[in-house]
């Protein structure tokens, strides 16, 4: 398994998309800090950018890579290697390369310019988020047989997590505005890793004061050690659950 991961990782690192992605993140981070006089605003701007960009790229790139590597996977499976191991090494190498790219592109300038806990939390959230969306991509890839369907599904998922979910939630809140819905809203954020990471980071910044009463409730949850650990655990479970589905399907799939 180690060898497969090694070769895949080296292959991925040579991929120009990853290099461009790293460079883009790096330049964007530098740009935000250069243009925004206030570090906190830069962090919020970066949060916005990476919450859009990282899920999208993780999804589309991973799913494309899966299809491109399909023949390689078949070749590997011809060897006495377990199916679960082979797909796990694919996941792992994607994760390693994305993590590296995010750490260099986003993390390095972030920690240099703003070496505070908010930056570290932002980095952690984005890393976890890419892990989540690579897992979701693999699941989508395993479930669909042809490439165009897979990419279509991944785009749909991206739209759902980034836009649709918020829209549905807003509609729901509009209809139940008369009720004390803060705690339920908190629960609903757990159902979307993008929202969860956004709120987690926002709550560490001064922006929290803008949110009034409900902000106070979120803050109460997300600034305690316990709340933060629960949130991180939830993000981790967002990695594990789709991955389990993907593995199970891959095990039984007629390749």
């Amino acid at each position, binding site marked *: 398994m180690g060898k497969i991961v090694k070769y895949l990782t080296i292959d991925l690192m040579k991929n120009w998309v990853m290099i461009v992605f790293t460079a883009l993140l790096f330049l964007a981070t530098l740009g935000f800090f250069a243009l925004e*006089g*206030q570090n906190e*605003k830069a962090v*919020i701007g970066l*949060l*916005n950018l990476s*919450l*859009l960009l990282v899920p999208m790229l993780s999804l589309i790139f991973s799913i494309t890579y899966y299809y491109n590597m399909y023949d390689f996977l078949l070749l590997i499976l011809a060897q006495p290697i377990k199916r679960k191991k082979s797909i796990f090494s694919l996941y792992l190498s994607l994760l390693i390369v994305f993590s590296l790219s995010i750490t260099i592109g986003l993390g390095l300038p972030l920690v240099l310019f703003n070496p505070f806990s908010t930056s570290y939390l932002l980095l952690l959230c984005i890393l976890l988020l890419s892990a989540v969306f690579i897992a979701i991509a693999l699941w989508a890839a395993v479930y669909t047989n042809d490439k165009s369907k897979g990419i279509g599904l991944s785009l749909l998922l991206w739209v759902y997590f*980034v*836009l649709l979910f*918020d*829209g549905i*939630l*807003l509609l729901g*809140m*509009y209809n139940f*505005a008369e009720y004390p*819905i*803060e705690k339920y*809203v*908190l629960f609903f*954020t757990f159902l979307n890793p993008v*929202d969860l990471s*956004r*709120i987690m980071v*926002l709550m560490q910044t*001064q*922006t929290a*004061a*803008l*949110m*009034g*009463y*409900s*902000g*106070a409730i*979120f803050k109460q949850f997300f600034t305690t050690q316990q709340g933060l650990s629960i949130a991180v655990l939830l993000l981790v479970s967002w990695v594990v659950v789709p991955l389990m589905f993907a593995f199970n399907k891959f095990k039984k799939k007629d390749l």
Partner: protein
Amino acid sequence: MGQVETKKNAEALSMIKFQTLLLLFCLQFGALFSKSRTVESSSVRNLQSVFDEAESGDTLLLKGLFKVSLLKVNKPLFIIGKDAEFVSKDGDEILVIASDSVLVKNIVFKDVEASFLKDRAAIRLLEVQQVQVDNNQFINTFFGVYVQNSSNCIISNNTLQGKAGDEVHAGNAIHIWKAERIEVINNVAEGHRDGIYFEFVNQSFISGNISKNNMRYGLHFMFSNYDIYENNQFENNGSGVAVMFSKHIRMLNNTFKENWGGASYGILLKEISDGVMKHNRFELNTVGVYAEGANRIQIDSNVFVRNGKALDIKGNCMDNKILNNNFLGNTFEVLTNSKGNLNFFEGNYWGQYSGYDLNKDGVGDVPHRPVNLFALITDKIPAASMLLHSPLVHGLDMAERIFPQLIPEQLIDKKPQMKPLNL
């Protein structure tokens, strides 16, 4: 009507200036004819008797540490310290001034204890006129200077340092209740409940003060008309500055800074009318200006920088003019809770303006709608604030500005500036 009021305002100002000159003149002139006496703490057992035996207009030069309380000044005296320190003997008030024309200068006041029965103050001005409290230091004195039913007094160059831990055990640094023509100039107030407190104070002048790190308000202003405050700095107070139930207030060149928190604002304008706010700077406040029932106020040439909400102007505000201000880097520029608009916005620079200027006259060709849809939504549904900075919200906001449905259609700036105004 407006003109009459302006004239009245101007008259009030010149009145204040005249009174001040007169007061200063009297104080200086009086000093020429009176006796001067040095009082050392080591040689005096009872300071009260020294005060009682002195003649009107005498100058007492005090030296050393005095442990006193409820010291009463019954006649015009010049009490000047030379390294003098007044420490409250039993935690009660230190100096009670019950006579006109008194000067208290260069003295350090210390350790007045908090009380729940009485508003104890280091210096109390009790129904007097022409008193000046100048260049003193107040350390841990519950209430610093307490002016009660007095007129034509000056409180200047004092430093007031409170050690209040919470709002309940704290007094106000400069507390003025029922007074006329008072000048509060160049004081520094810190660590009290309210930095400067005005109640029923007319035709007064607050200038050059620094009020910071107070529990509640930097400046608390109620039922006070025809006052002017300028060049003050209000920083990091519990809830900023409150100006309430007052008329004809002029607020010029003040700085409101770093009042950040769930219930904080730079300045609260509640039930006030016919005021002028010019050349003020609002920086890093949760809400820059919070206006409720404010009428006919001219908000002109101010700078709003990096506030959460720059201007929260409620539906019961009427005929306010918001002109030529700079709004830079605020999360929300204007917030209101009404679909209509009874105020007038023009010629401001808005950081969030995205229009163009084809004829290059410096004024944007498309009007700007400063109200943010999301600010309105969260105002109605607080729980929706969890979607702050969500891409969906940004999208909705953009669409709403182009085709307004929910945001007040008339709340527009028809002449948005393309570049920040030079303020």
